[in-house]
């Protein structure tokens, strides 16, 4: 249960147990469910979940509970009859008065709490996978991003020895230039990584390299942060434009190497 607020979960379970023991009515269960889920979304995680997500979850919770309460005439009667009794019967005057005070007080407190949030700069939603342009120019050569492929990939079948040479060259390039940020094992945890936000890409992640064509990775290596599309700014990327420091062959070689090292293959053209 790492990552969750265990005492809260236990407390909620204890209350639920007590409600089962006391054979609580439907209305009590509905109120408890809403309150328990609110508490869980608000305090149930060691790292708090963002307000935007909590709002979505609470919206779904509210909708589901309303649907349940009104999904049959009998159930609606079960839910509303205690409320009607509370309003009508004289013996409940004191709790009714308390409720009439508590509800606006709760609303007032909510407004107070909403108004008293610390001032902070707005957060930026970052695009993790920028969409590539249709073509790029590297060292004066224009490449069609949809059709371009690693020019040495075919050597894997045609000339394994030459392919190994390119891999070795890629290894050299990687450990001379890239490992500082992307790490020895390519986990995005190089020695400079702690100073970068967002962190460098983790190439071990199965959700990164395999879903990208080799042309995409070449685009990122060759043009780096300065080559990112304007449409998705701000990028906050520290990736250099390696075309200024490496030859085209070196960049395709390192492209081969990072795929080979992680045991992934680039997404093929037309692959779903």
């Amino acid at each position, binding site marked *: 249960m790492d990552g969750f607020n265990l005492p809260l979960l236990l407390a909620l379970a204890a209350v639920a147990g007590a409600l089962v023991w006391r054979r609580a009515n439907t209305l009590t269960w509905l109120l408890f469910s809403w309150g328990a889920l609110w508490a869980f979304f608000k305090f149930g995680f060691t790292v708090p979940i*963002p307000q935007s997500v909590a709002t979505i979850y609470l919206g*779904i919770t509210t909708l*589901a509970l309303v649907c349940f309460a009104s999904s*049959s005439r009998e159930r609606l009667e079960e839910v509303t009859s205690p409320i009607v009794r509370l309003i009508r019967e004289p013996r409940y005057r004191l709790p009714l008065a308390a409720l009439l005070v508590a509800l606006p007080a709760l609303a007032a407190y909510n407004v107070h709490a909403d108004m008293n949030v610390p001032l902070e700069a707005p957060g930026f939603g970052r695009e993790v996978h920028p969409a590539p342009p249709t073509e790029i120019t590297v060292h004066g050569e224009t490449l069609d991003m949809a059709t371009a492929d690693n020019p040495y990939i075919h050597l894997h079948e045609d000339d394994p020895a030459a392919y190994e040479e390119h891999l070795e060259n890629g290894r050299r390039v990687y450990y001379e230039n890239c490992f500082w940020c992307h790490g020895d094992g390519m986990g995005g945890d190089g020695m400079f990584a702690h100073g970068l936000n967002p962190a460098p890409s983790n190439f071990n992640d199965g959700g990164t390299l*395999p879903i990208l064509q080799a042309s995409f990775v070449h685009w990122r290596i060759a043009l780096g942060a300065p080559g990112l599309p304007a449409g998705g700014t701000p990028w906050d990327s520290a990736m250099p434009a390696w075309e200024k420091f490496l030859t085209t062959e070196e960049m395709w070689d390192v492209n081969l190497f990072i795929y080979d090292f992680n045991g992934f293959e680039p997404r093929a053209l037309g692959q779903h």
Partner: protein
Amino acid sequence: MSRNKILFGIGVLAFVSVIVTVRLGGFLVDNEYRQPDRQAAAEEALGQAELTPRQQGIADEQAADEAEARALPYEEAEYRSVPFVGSRVTVWVLAQLHLLFAAFVLAVPLFAFIIEFIGYVKKEERYNKLAYEFTKLLSVSFSMTATFGAFLTFGLIILYPKFTNYLMHIFSPTFLPYVLLFFLEALFLYSYYYGWGKFGPKVHLFLGFMLNIVGTAIMFIANAWLTFMMSPGKREDVDGDGVPDFVSAVSESGALLSLRDAFFNFTWMPINIHRIIANVAFGGSIAAAYAAFRYLRAKTDEEKAHFDWMGYIGNFVAIIAFLPLPFAGYYLASEIYAYSQTMGIQMMGSTFSWLFVIQAALIGNLFLGANYYLWLGMGRIEGTVHFQKFIKWLLIAIALCFAVWATPRYAIASVSEIAAMGGNSHPQLAVLGQMSAKNTAVNILILSTYMSFLLYRRTGRLSLHPQKQLLTRAQAIVFSAAAALVIFFGIYGYQVDAATRVRFAIPQVYSVLAAMAVITIIDLPLYRNARQEGETHWGKMPAISQYALIFIALSFTWLMGLMGYVRSGLRQEWHVYGVVLDTSPDAYTPSLGFATQVVSVTVLIFFGLLGVVFWLSSLGGKKDYEPKSAAELEGGQAA
């Protein structure tokens, strides 16, 4: 003084004020300043009066405008603008309205024909009546479709003349067949509608069948135009290396190379499949909303019973079509990704991905609304208590899946929240934002909804099948096995690479479809001669159930508008992707907030127009006008 007299007095005063102002203006113009010399008086007497300063000014302005117009050479306009709204939004709204009515007009004949056919086979007149009730909505909707089609065509010609001309260059051979098919559709539609009861059942069914064939063919042609704009070519392994190559239907300058490749382009068939299914779901929901509208206005029990049943059938059609829709959408999205990495990433991982969170919320609402309607529907059948206990668990499953589907991979968060999470994704919830979790959630949602249908179908009926227990257990095992398989692949998806994970969607889908097929096959003999334990009281639904139907229709419409924008917006600054660049002032991608506002306004306009369609369609059932008799008039005067 009475209020009416005061209002009348104000009206008269306003009318007199307008008359006086107009007359005063005329008097001042007629008596404007003239030069007071004899020469002027003489010229005036000869009919050669010199112009007054005002008249001279007007004449000078006209001459200057004419000179300016003559000095300008004629040039073909690339774009024209619309004040305030902008040309893009104008065409966007017109296209969306045309598409919504067209989708409805294509969908309704499809299920009206099926319902009529069921009635013909079962020899039950009520099905025939229901099919006719659905068809009544078509006549006005067809006119609306044609009207907005004309609006859209003129809008494109006026506002995007150069681009429209280019599309004509590519697709001109398809226009004549399109118009001919449109003519045939009108012929079949009106003969199907006005010929109800006038032809033999087989002839009438043939008309309905042909109406569907022609309507679908029209949609397929129109789909070629719009999918060409997204994917002007095909992918084919030309050099035999096992890797698909891009084969463009046009040259680099945009000249047509192959009409066949332009027509049967890469995304044409995925759109066709997606649209047919979505149209039926949408059409069913709109027809159900019409039934809800009539139910809420119904005065007699008979009317209520009829429209309750109609709403149920409409919703049934919508949900049955809706169940496979996520799969068709997934197929379309994967084909877009396969066609263009840029468009694929743009759609699911970049700018447009936020709209999929809204889509998740809407689809979650749709599932919840559909199940809710079914649960309320159990109330019209006697003997439902037994199944009520399952509703709680179904609701928990649906709410959980809804929450998983709506969980964003990268949340909108404040700076302090981002700092606490160490990035935009939450350490625990980020796993729910991935495709494995989403696919699992949608499959379980579909299974749960199917289960609600099954419970509804069984409500008030007792199976008399000798193997009842065995067959029911078999159904439970199939259901549990499908759910377990879906969850297994969902969890296992996190342990494998992305390419394998994406392929896991296929066994998940197949296990759900297979489970639904097997359970249905078992259920048919199981409840074929079931004993009716409780009576079904059509027309005894609470009003909230009808609002749920209207809500479902609204959600479908909004969803179509939103996803239509995503599909079209993926082209970004291109009219035809990679071929014809949009150089108009509207070439930028609008903000997501603005896009949702345009979609919302379009949906509101559509529902306003739909109100007119509903009203016109319901006029046929009203009593004929009868002039009041002399006795009634006298009675009125005496009172």
